């Protein structure tokens, strides 16, 4: 191929020189035809491979490797369906997904979307409406926790994606520390002792004093944020106007107090000091959702098995979650639906997933069936499915908007500035926050 191209260019360079002899031109023309022939061969070769639309090939895009397990099981169940799985990590994934949706080219039949980006993506019209026939997704969603059902629907109440993961939260606590400072490590009694933020603050102050500043009640201010942001009544934007919910205003006061009284350990969540603290036992409580058990605690502090417990904090909350959506112009909607149904509601698969991967499901019916038998050695034998199943029922539905991801990150950075003292007062912090939101999103009225 390279050879042909070279000759074609020779032909051009001769031409440019003006006075080329006939022999060269002839040679050049024959070379050109060969190049064209070769090119057409390549193109036809490619198009024949892309035009195979009748084959049973399902293209799935995911940002999380946990999909590999599901795809493996799906292939076992339906050996005649070929699955083409593309795995890209988080930020790049959203970028690529949105760009192919915009271009309308090479769009996957099924794609996974994380909760952070879901409000933004679920309103794209290219997502199939799953409420209508032949999918009738409400039959599946009816078995799910209420808060998940609300996230799955768009503004018009149509189901645009299915969640397979249940993500209610808990206060994970170190049993040894609880026994030492609270006098008990029983989950119910601990839940009693941390049933309000005031109680947690009091425990925090006491623990810091008694341990000589070594042990803290909370790991970072995000332990407060994760709970409060899940309990908002109004989303960031209502009718084009920026709204700061009361839960978020409370959060400002709570985090400041926690910072000043050393109730929180000032770790950066997901930072290395934060993960190390789980191993070292310098923090009593971490507010994390279901998936924190395998992915945060067991993976970062494997040697602390049996030292942990689950308790209910001041309020129920949830965090994260993944939703599977279908491309409305897909040629394989039947296959796509088969996969979505399999992942979210197939009882055999769901139970296997829950048992082998410690995976808490969105389907509360199946969760309830497993509640009595699933225990975790890491949590000293606590029945964690039972715990999360009850916690899931209590999780409030926090309203979302497509701006959430961006505004949350502005909020977080202003919170950090406020807590670190770079912004001195609460009023100033709120003002700066409003200014920046207004700057980034001119369409939002950010004034008070």
């Amino acid at each position, binding site marked *: 191929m*390279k050879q042909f191209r*070279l*000759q074609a*260019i*020779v032909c051009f*360079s*001769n031409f*440019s*020189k003006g006075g080329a002899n006939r022999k*060269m031109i002839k040679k050049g023309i024959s070379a050109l035809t060969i190049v064209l022939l070769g090119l057409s061969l*390549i*193109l036809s070769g*490619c*198009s024949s491979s*892309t035009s195979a639309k009748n084959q049973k090939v399902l293209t799935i895009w995911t*940002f*999380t*490797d*946990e999909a590999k397990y599901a795809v493996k099981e799906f292939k076992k169940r339906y050996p005649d369906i070929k699955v*083409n*799985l*593309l*795995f*890209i*990590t*988080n930020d*790049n994934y959203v970028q*690529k997904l949105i*760009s192919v949706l915009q*271009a309308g*080219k*090479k769009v996957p039949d099924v794609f996974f979307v*994380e909760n952070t980006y879901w409000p933004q993506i679920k309103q794209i019209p290219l997502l199939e409406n799953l409420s209508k026939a032949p999918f009738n997704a409400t039959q599946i969603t009816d078995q799910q926790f209420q808060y998940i059902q609300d996230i799955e629907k768009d503004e018009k109440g149509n189901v645009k994606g299915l969640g397979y993961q249940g993500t209610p939260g808990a206060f994970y606590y170190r049993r040894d520390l609880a026994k030492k400072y609270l006098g008990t490590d029983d989950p119910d009694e601990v839940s009693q002792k941390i049933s309000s933020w005031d109680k947690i603050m009091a425990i925090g102050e006491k623990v810091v004093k008694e341990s000589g500043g070594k042990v803290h009640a909370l790991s970072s201010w995000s332990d407060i944020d994760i709970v409060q942001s899940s309990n908002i009544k109004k989303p960031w934007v209502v009718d084009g106007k920026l709204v700061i919910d009361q839960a978020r205003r409370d959060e400002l006061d709570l985090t400041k107090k926690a910072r000043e009284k050393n109730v929180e350990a000032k770790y950066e969540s*997901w930072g*290395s000091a934060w*993960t*190390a603290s789980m*191993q*070292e036992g310098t923090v009593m409580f971490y507010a994390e959702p279901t*998936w924190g058990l*395998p*992915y*945060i605690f067991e*993976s*970062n*502090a*494997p*040697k602390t098995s049996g030292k942990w417990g689950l308790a209910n904090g001041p309020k129920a909350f949830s965090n994260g979650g993944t939703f599977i959506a279908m491309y409305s112009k897909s040629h394989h909607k039947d296959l796509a639906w088969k996969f979505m149904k399999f992942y979210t509601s197939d009882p055999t698969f769901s139970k296997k997933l829950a048992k082998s991967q410690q995976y808490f499901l969105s389907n509360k019916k199946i969760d309830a069936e497993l509640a009595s038998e699933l225990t975790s050695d890491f949590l000293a034998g606590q029945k964690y499915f039972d715990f999360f199943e009850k916690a899931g029922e209590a999780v409030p539905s926090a309203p979302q908007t497509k701006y959430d991801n961006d505004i949350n990150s502005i909020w977080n950075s202003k919170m950090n500035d406020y807590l670190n003292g770079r912004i001195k007062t609460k009023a100033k912090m709120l003002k700066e926050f409003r200014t920046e939101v207004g700057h980034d999103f001119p369409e939002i009225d950010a004034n008070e």
Partner: protein
Amino acid sequence: MANNTSVTPLTEKTLTPRSRVKWSHVIIYVLLIVLAIICVVPFYIMIIYGTHTNAEIASKFIFLPGRSLVENYQSMMENVNIWRGFMNSLIISCCSTALTLYFGALNAYGFAKFNFKGNKILFWFVLATMMVPQQLGLVGTFRIMYLLHLLDTYASLILPAAANAFAVFFVKQFIDGTIPNEIIESARVDGAGEFKTFNRIILPMLVPALAALGIFSFIGSWNNFMGPLVLLFSNEKYPLPLLVQLLQGYYGTNYGVQYLGVALSVLPIIIVFAIFSKRIIGSVAIGAVKG
């Protein structure tokens, strides 16, 4: 590790004084040793961390090799096939470097030695394309590759390398400075066609410039992240930078595995350059003297 051991003997040898120790030398060598350590330590840490579990890395600073190398390697291979990634990276980088060098040289030769109408304007136009940011160019590349049905093929990454404005510029400068018109004329007198003149006579003379350019182009292509991310649609075709990224789990990263992946993807390049660096630098220097 290889890096560390290769550095220490050198410094020790240079430290042993023949007769008298000069203070200035001591200071210089101490500074050089410190510099060498600063350069080597990150690589050393990267390799050492590849042999530890995530929990060990998270909890303390480690300076000695651990025992989890096999374990990390296995969990890496479960997620991604790094050797396949190597092959992909090699195919893409080698082919696109070859294309860049050959067509860059050919183009530059044309601009440097042929006085056709609009030569200057065309040359400036080629240079102007360097001003377009690569990210913007990707949008167009995506469209063209879609029209040509080349999305999700190596060709979509390799073929654009043939049109490299920087290569044209770089080689043209070199030709202007080193290759006299007489050589081309004598080739013509001896009856060589234009194409033969270029391939047999000009190209070998350009080797020093092409060697330097080859390094840039190879590294650029080896490290290219955005291109393959946009143009490839199957994990099996992913080159190393994308594969290493995939080692980053969604729920927090297993650092041991990731360090191992990075180390494995960087080491071969370091080794190749350690072996060939003298030749590469030597050939560049020879060209410079001649010019």
